């Protein structure tokens, strides 16, 4: 049997112990294997809770009929560790996830936990650090690295243990624009090289626009799941729940308001550029 879904949520309900109302209410979604899915929603919509549910840091409510399937395994308290082998998470704050005293140590941390022999560890650490372009920094201490570099090390640490799924839990939100672009480029490249499934939880609309699939979360419920163009071309829906839309879609929306109708098939920056130039020459 081939597994086509990397992550599947079926009627998942989750309540934090100290709160009365559930954060997530009967959530259903699927993430296809080898795809890039973006999970967007405003603050407090339950995005980060989802990432913690996927690798068993949190468990869904009992008696709620919740079923979480990660690469073919139904998550329960016995196979949590097997699932963590398959899922790597890059967290938000680059400082607070750096365990090792040097870059090499940090990348090796996941391998140490799995009892990998040292010779093999040294090779893997070098390989994954060169994958993210940080090999020159192998002996550097975290205090001497920039935020973007620390996130690259975090990605290397996850690649070292060869997961199937990488979750970016607002990983780029504390970085400057150039740091963010670098990280996203690296992820995009690694995703095609290593056939990874990416779930990116983000506020960044451009990051969501890079995805194959977008899930919109609002107050613990899934509002829509579709391709980014479909989501962002309906300008009203994201606006109503307080989300921004990508620049191109914003421009098209404004032009539409000014009476310049842009056809539906114009979706990317280049297409819009071409269309507007053509429009200009027609006049």
């Amino acid at each position, binding site marked *: 049997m081939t597994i086509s879904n990397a992550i599947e949520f079926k009627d998942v309900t989750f309540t934090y112990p100290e709160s009365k109302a559930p954060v997530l209410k009967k959530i259903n979604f699927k993430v296809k294997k080898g795809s890039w899915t973006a999970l967007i929603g405003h603050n407090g919509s339950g995005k980060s809770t989802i990432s*913690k549910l996927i*690798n068993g*840091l949190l468990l869904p409510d009992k008696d709620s009929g919740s079923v979480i399937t990660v690469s073919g395994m139904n998550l329960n308290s016995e196979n949590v*560790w097997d699932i*963590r*082998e398959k*899922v*790597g*998470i890059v*967290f938000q*704050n680059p*400082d*607070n*996830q*750096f*365990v*090792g*005293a*040097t870059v*090499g*140590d940090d990348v*090796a*941390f*996941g*391998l*140490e*936990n*799995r*009892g*990998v*022999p*040292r010779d093999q*560890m*040294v090779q893997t*650490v070098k390989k994954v650090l060169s994958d993210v372009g940080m090999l020159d920094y192998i002996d550097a*201490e*975290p*205090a*001497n690295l920039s935020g973007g570099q620390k996130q690259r090390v975090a990605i290397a*640490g*996850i690649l070292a*243990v060869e997961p199937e799924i990488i979750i970016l839990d607002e990983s780029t939100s504390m970085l400057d624009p150039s740091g963010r672009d670098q990280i996203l480029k690296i992820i995009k490249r690694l995703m095609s090289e290593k056939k990874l499934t990416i779930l990116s939880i983000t506020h960044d609309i451009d990051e969501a626009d890079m995805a194959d699939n977008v899930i919109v979360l609002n107050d613990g419920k899934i509002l829509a799941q579709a391709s980014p163009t479909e989501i962002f071309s309906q300008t009203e829906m994201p606006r109503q729940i307080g989300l921004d839309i990508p620049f191109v879609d914003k421009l098209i929306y404004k032009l539409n308001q000014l009476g310049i109708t842009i056809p539906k098939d114009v979706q990317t920056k280049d297409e819009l550029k071409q269309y507007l130039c053509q429009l200009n020459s027609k006049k």
Partner: protein
Amino acid sequence: MSKIIVGRYIPGNSLVYKIDPRGKLLITILFIFVIFLANNPITYAIITVFCLAAVFATRLKVRVFWDGVKPLIGLIFFTSLLQLFFMTGGKTYWQWWIFTISSYGLVNAAYTFIRFTLIILISTVMTVTTMPLEIADAMEWLLKPLKIFKVPVDKIALVISIALRFVPTLFDETLKIMNAQRSRGADFNDGGLVKRAKAITPILVPLFIHSLETAIDLSTAMESRGYRGSSGRTKYRVLNWSKYDLISLFYFIALVLLLLIFRNH
């Protein structure tokens, strides 16, 4: 970005740097015992020469070692002076009320002075040429026999390495909090003891909360990277004995032998 160096490690590449940290730590500890073997001018001269040779082998500026001795100079003089004035015996040169200066007192004051200075110098050689991380590794190695008594050595080692890794991070955070409080009018350098102690509250409380939050984040990150306690873990960082460790070992044995030979002359 902060430029602070944890501990007082000063990078370099002289001979002393190449010695395995475990060897350095052991010899430094043993040196403190060995120094009490010296009991006459010849042995004191021997141990001083050996210690100064180690200091010069680091090829570092004298200033570094002076900085090591400086904070304790008051204590050194105080103890030496106590020896000088309260020790009786031998020839008495000078006496007034309870103070006496005798030949025994003079000699003992000089010995105490040398002993103190040498211990500080040799530990400075150790801390200045060894990265804190290496010291932590060396400590873990030394603690290993305690595993028989069910002491969680691996966990202690992880705690030490995380603590060391967060020293610069927390230092940066403290500076940031201080600057933020200053920009709101806090004053950390003025007033009496009570006022200054109170001024620390707006630094300590946020710093404490920040540390706890960091700890929670870090433990989440560690767990999601497959950490489930110290059993079954392998180690990435290893220490290797080299020929330089033999040199330092022979150096130390030579010192001990010379001290034993000339002790009762």
